[in-house]
C-alpha cells in the first residue's frame, strides 16, 4: 500500500570520490523501480542517538539491477557514519520521497548543480531527452563532472578558479553565453535565488530543488516548509512542504 517504504538495505559500494564526498550504491529493490530524478531518500543512522532521517538525493537509478546511487558529503554525524559503512553493511532507508523534476522534453535546457546539489542532476541529465548544457559549480575540488560528459556539454565553475570559470554557476553561464528554454537547478539557496532572478530576467522557466531541515520527510510534520507566492491548497497558508510538495518547485511558485 505504501508509495514509499522504510527498509534495511544492503550497501553494494561506498567509496570516496573526492575529499569528503562519497558515492554509495544500495540494493534498493522496488524503490529503484519507481525512483525519479530529483526525488530523494531518507537515510537513517545505525547509532540511534541520532534519530532523524538524513535526506539524500537520488543521484542515479540502475533499474536493471534495482540499485540506487547516493552521493553525499560528510558534514556532520550522520554523513560521517554513512561514510564508514562498507560493502555488505546495511543501512535503513525510506523512499523514494517527494516529487522529482518534471521532464520537459524537447526544450533546450540548462542543468545547474552547485556543490552537493550536483548529484541529483546526474540522473536528470541521463533521462532528459533534449539539447543540454550542464553547469556545475564547486568551491574547489570537483567531482562527478566527468560522468556528466556522456550526457551533454559540461561547464565547470570553481570559486577559486582552479578549474573552469572562476566564480559561480551564473558566471559560467554568462562566460559561455548559454541560453535555454528551461533551467533545472539544485544547490544552496543563495545560488537558487540568483538563478531565479536570472531566469525571470531572461524569461526562462526554472525548476529549482530546495533544501530544508526535515523531521518526517513525508509531509506530516510541517517542519520543512518554504514560502510560496499563492496560498497553498494543502496548507491554506503561503507555505508548501519541501519534502512532499517538492523538493522541486517552479521558480515562479516559491519565494527564496
Amino acid at each position, binding site marked *: *500500500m*505504501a*508509495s*514509499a*517504504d*522504510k527498509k534495511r538495505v544492503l550497501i553494494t559500494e561506498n567509496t570516496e570520490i573526492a575529499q569528503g564526498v562519497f558515492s554509495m550504491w544500495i540494493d534498493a529493490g522496488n524503490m529503484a523501480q519507481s525512483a525519479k530524478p530529483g526525488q530523494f531518500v531518507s537515510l*537513517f543512522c545505525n547509532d*540511534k*542517538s*541520532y*534519530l*532523524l*532521517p538524513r535526506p539524500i538525493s537520488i543521484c542515479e537509478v540502475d533499474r536493471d539491477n534495482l540499485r540506487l546511487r547516493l552521493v553525499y558529503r560528510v558534514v556532520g554525524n550522520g554523513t560521517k557514519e554513512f561514510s564508514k559503512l562498507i560493502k555488505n553493511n546495511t543501512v535503513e532507508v*525510506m523512499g523514494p520521497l517527494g516529487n522529482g523534476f518534471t521532464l520537459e522534453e524537447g526544450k533546450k535546457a540548462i542543468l545547474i548543480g552547485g556543490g552537493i546539489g550536483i548529484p541529483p542532476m546526474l540522473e536528470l541529465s541521463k533521462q532528459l531527452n533534449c539539447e543540454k548544457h550542464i553547469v556545475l559549480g564547486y568551491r574547489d575540488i570537483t567531482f562527478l563532472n566527468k560522468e556528466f560528459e556522456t550526457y551533454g556539454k559540461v561547464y565547470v565553475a570553481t570559486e577559486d578558479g582552479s578549474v573552469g570559470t572562476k566564480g559561480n554557476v551564473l558566471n559560467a553561464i554568462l562566460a559561455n553565453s548559454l541560453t535555454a528554454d528551461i533551467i533545472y537547478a539544485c544547490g544552496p539557496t543563495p545560488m537558487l535565488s540568483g538563478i531565479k532572478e536570472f531566469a525571470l530576467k531572461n524569461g526562462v522557466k526554472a525548476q529549482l530543488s530546495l533544501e*530544508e*531541515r*526535515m*523531521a*518526517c*520527510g*513525508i*509531509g*506530516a*510534520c*510541517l*517542519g*520543512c*516548509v*518554504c514560502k510560496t507566492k499563492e496560498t497553498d491548497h*494543502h*496548507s*491554506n*497558508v*503561503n*507555505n508548501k512542504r519541501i519534502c*512532499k510538495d517538492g523538493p522541486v518547485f517552479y521558480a515562479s511558485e516559491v519565494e527564496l
Partner: protein
Amino acid sequence: MNTSVKLAGVTFKNPVTTASGTFGSGIEYSEYFDLSRLGAVTTKGVSNVAWAGNPTPRVAETYGGMLNAIGLQNPGMNVFINRDIPFLRKYDTKIIVNVVGKTTEDYCEVVERLADCDVDLLEINISCPNVKEGGIAFGQDPKCVEAITAQLKKRAKQPIIMKLSPNVTDITEMARAAEAAGADALSLINTLTGMKIDINRRAFLLANKTGGLSGPAIKPIAVRMVYQVANAVQIPIIGMGGIMNAEDALEFIMAGASMVAVGTANFINPNATATVIEGIEEYMKNHNIPDINELIGCVK
C-alpha cells in the same frame, strides 16, 4: 484478549493514538498502514483561522530527541472540518481533534464550531511552547487552566481532554485544576522547552531560538509526570513523550495512563503506531494478561 479501553465515555479498540502534530490528519501516514488499526487519530492543532507558523528552520535534531518550533501552522477550522474529518471518518478509528488558540475566545470559537461535527473528543492544547500568545501561557498557572477548562466545558458537546505542559514546577496542580473545572481527561506531556546552538555559525539552530523537545530523551520525565498525575486525579490520562515501541507504551500504561500517544517515533518509522499495538498484544499474550485494563496503573 481485550485491548479496548474506555476513556471519557468513548470506547477505543486499543489504547494507542497519535500525538498531535506528528501525524497531520493521517493522510500522509495512510499510505503506510491502515489507519483503522489505531485506537484513535489525534490531529494537528487547529485554530479558528489559518496560521502560517514560524519561519524555518523549524526542526533540529538533539541527542535522543528533537526540537520543533512549527508554531502551530494549520489551515484553520473550516478547511480542517470540510476536508480532514470526512477523510478520517472513512476509517474505523476514533477522532480526537487538538484545538489551539491565542485567546480564550479563539479556543471557544473552535470548540463551538466542532460541537456539531462528527468527531469523538477534543484535546485542548494549552501547552505549546512555540507560539508567542496563547499556548503554554494558559497551561502554567492553575487558575488559567481552571478558567479555560470551565469556559470550554460549557461549550463543548464532545468530551474534552486538557493537554498539559511539563514546563511547570508541579504538574499535579494543573491536573487538579483541570479536573476541578470539569475536564473529562488529561493528555501529558507536551514538549519541554529547549534550545540548540550552532557553534560554527554562532547562532541559534531554530529560527524561533527555542523549540519543544520531544522523543525518547524525555520519556523518563513523561512517565514520572503520568505517574504523579494518575495518583492525584480521578480522570483518565493519555500518556505520551518519547514512546518508540511497545515497551515504552507499557511503561506509561503501568504508570497510570489509560491510553498512549506516539509522536516523534512516527518520523523515525511511519509504522511506529502499528508496531506499538502489535507489541502490546504480544506482551499481553506472553504474560497472560487477558485484559489491558489490568495493566493500567498497576505499578504503585
